């Protein structure tokens, strides 16, 4: 039987108690004959990086659900990546609980607006949200972008709308946010990194 290391651990975890039993003659093939499959046996593995501190531990996400049209895959398990040179398979109490953050009941799932003076959220479409936000931004930029300072030097700055950029998003997202902010002339720009 052809098995890689991780597959072996999965199988041995399901029925065998490590290598000593294998040495006594219990073959992993026997474990495969068990009626109840190990829960990760049919999952897809995706490598990821823990989102919390900057040790940036390697993680493996185990996703259940094939790619069929009507199937929404879900992450069912997360563990430390044993190949990762820094964390070598381990996770800390924060990282080990990350599945519950991914599936938190407090995830925002739809665009919402809270109108001025209101005490509740109202669900809106992405189109409405982006159009309304863009209108606000354009009105503010058109009214307040400073083209030249009092000495006549071209300054092209817009400082009445600010932007705090996420430190939890990827480099690529961060780069694009900054590119757009600078492209619009924003100077009131900052990030969690300062704090």
């Amino acid at each position, binding site marked *: 039987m052809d098995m890689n290391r991780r597959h072996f651990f999965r199988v041995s975890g399901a029925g065998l108690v490590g290598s000593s039993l294998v040495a006594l003659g219990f073959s992993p093939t026997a474990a495969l004959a068990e009626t109840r499959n190990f829960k990760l046996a049919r999952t897809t593995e995706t490598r990821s990086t823990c989102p919390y*501190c900057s040790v940036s531990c390697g993680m493996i996400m185990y996703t259940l659900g094939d790619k069929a049209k009507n199937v929404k895959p879900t992450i069912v398990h997360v563990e430390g990546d044993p190949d990762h040179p820094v964390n*070598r398979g381990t996770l800390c109490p*924060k990282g080990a609980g990350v599945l519950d953050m991914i599936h938190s009941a407090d995830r925002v*799932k739809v665009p919402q607006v809270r109108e001025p003076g209101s005490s509740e959220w109202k669900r809106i479409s992405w189109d409405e949200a982006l159009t309304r936000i863009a209108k606000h931004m354009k009105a503010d930029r058109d009214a307040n972008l400073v083209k030249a300072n009092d000495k006549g030097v071209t300054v092209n700055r817009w400082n009445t709308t600010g932007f705090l950029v996420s430190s939890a*998003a990827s480099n*690529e*997202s961060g*780069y694009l946010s900054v590119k757009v902010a600078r492209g619009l002339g924003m100077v009131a720009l900052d990030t969690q990194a300062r704090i």
Partner: protein
Amino acid sequence: MTNSWTDIRNTDMVLIMGGNAAEAHPCGFKWVVEAMQHRKAKLVVVDPRFTRSAAVADYYAPVRNGTDIAFLGGVINYLLSNDKIHHDYVKIHTDATFLLKENFAYDNGFFSGYNADKRSYDKSSWGYQLDHDGYVKADASMQDPLCVYQQLKKHYSRYTPDLVSRITGTPKDAFLKVCEAIGEMSKPDKVMTIMYALGWTQHSVGSQNIRTMAMIQLLLGNMGRPGGGVNALRGHANVQGITDMCAYSEVLSGYMGAPVDTDVDRATYLKARTLKPLRPNQMSYWQNFPKFHTSLMKAYYGNAATAENDFAYDWLPKKDAAYDVLAIFERMHQGKMNGFLCQGFNPLAAVPNKKKMSAALAKLKYLVMMDPLETETSEFWKNFGPLNDVKPDEIKTEVFRLPTSCFAEETGSFTNSGRTLQWKEHAVEPPGEAKVDSEIIARLFMTLRAMYAKDGGTLPEPVAALNWPYINANVPSPSEVLREISGKALADVLAPPDPKDPKAPPKVLVKAGEQVPGFAMLRDDGSTSCGNWLYSGCWSQAGNLTARRDPSDPTGLGVYGNWGYSWPANRRILYNRASADKDGKPWDASRKYIAWNGSAWAGADVPDMAPTAAPEQGVGAFIMNPEGVARLHAIGMAEGPFPEHYEPFETPVGVNLMCPSNPKAVSNPAARVYKGDLEAFGKKEEFPYAATTYRLTEHQHFWTKHSRSNAIVQPAPFVEIGEELAKEKGIQHGQKVRVRSNRGEVVAACVVTKRIKPWDVDGKKVHLVGIPIHWGFKGVTQNGYLANSLTPFVGDANCQTPEFKAFLVNIEKA
């Protein structure tokens, strides 16, 4: 980090100060344990609290919060007066031999040039003497009283063990024991590392805390060496990457100074930042600034950035004032801001003085929150009783809440504390209608661009011209963007003419359209494009190097050179030329890192040096500095070229014992304090106890309170005090207490521990109150008061990181 997580295994001693790696960075702390077990490395912890890092240390010394410079200044004095420095290293790799200006002085709390009205310095008396050629004058014997070494000695001679102990509350014998351990590391074959975090940065003297330590590491000869360095343990998985992308006002991608009003045109702007060498033969790498900047402008504006229009220089916004997060909220509080976009950030909780935050947000016309979770900021307008006592009908801010992906749903790269970019793939799609941050920004920008195209408006040109080459304009793919960041040739990049055969056609180094192999190929004529020069080469013609997963460590020194990609140039230890002596031989043969092999620099890592610059040329290891060496005297700092102790803005002592007769130098004289905030500082008479915020090992900022498993292991808010204070105040373990500062209050259960003990500060007892920060009015933990209800709105004088680690409170039974 100048070094990397896996490099910690190479150390002989770990100092943890201003951080608590065992609890805040547990999987990184394993490398400390590795060094302790396999190299018999010593662990020394200096902290206001007896943390879990302290619990496994070989030696622990308590220190009053906010007095780290006094402690470390005392260490410098010990090293210099006991000759515990690495002489050969100090001579070739630092500015110790350089001569300072004759009129430079320090007197009773101020350096020369202080302007009390402006709370800032005229720095003309600081810095080096230059000769006729514009090079720094030096005295190799280090006997000249004006040389940096002698001036350093003079400045820190005031930091005697007795005075250090009176200020810091560290018992004198404990202080000296730490000094002795550090002093041992001055031997050429010994190396120490320092691990710090927010415990050093979140002070009004934060930058100088770190600088003092960097100076110690230079005196010990520990920079650029395996097992050494100055290592910041950062707090979000990609906080390093976003710092490098420079999502803040002062700098453009790759730490290039952003233009300000006085940079009237491109030539003026470039000239001020293209730094010429201050000593003969130095690389002064910022001489390449125009290449990096022009390539960035080509990435931003593509064909619209031309030599004729100064590569679109006019379209870059020019900064006229400070726009750090404190300045932004101050402006908002003054009613000068209309809109605010807030992505993955919870400022109502994360920026000091919650009351001020709340009032500021209420003055906005529109607020756009982009976050995977329901943050407090997104509901700042909602009433949560005493936890957020506001009247929604009076708050006219229009608030949008856009659902974003979390890390597991986004493909792309994160950069860890050790500067290594690591690629990850998304495992699932974001839930519900949530979108990845980059898609939200792209769609928002496309909407705006369409509006400008249709209706016109103010300065529509850059909006139309911003380079947007992505296959799907609404959904730029992370690989497209990382290739743009890494950079490519827009025309053939040619080698300079061969001096032996000047008529030969120039060699093509990179063909038009190809990815560049690194920043050395970038040009200032518009023939290359690069979104961040520091990351250049991370996606070369060889492909996406951030996705590499080779776990091999050929030298056994913890250098995983083919795992991901480290900036700059895949270098794992910065300044690594300094791991060798002046002849290019390693200081310690058992940890040979980079050495001169007779014709080139080579070794375990990518050399931080021109590869063929022979040692006799004397090219310094600190290539980004025009002087080629590291600075013991740094004129870039706001409050002085040598770090000096100043009390926190809310001090439990009320006097700066380094200059007791100068009431204007009690706290950092160059820190920015806004009107209103000054009045909101508390005094020790009303708020007698020192306080600090801190983090718990089970929680990440204000994030994991939304996660059930974290909520189970650490479910409820608390504050922590020592047994002695509990007895004085009649507080029992578990009782509810009210902690007040001059800005607000927190009510929570009180945990009484042995981990916190009072200090003897100048004959008086000073108690500490510890405030874990993780609670709020949203989440699956029990609700609690936001800790920033208590904290002062003042930041470090250089980078404005808020002073969360030292303030004053009072405490009573609730």
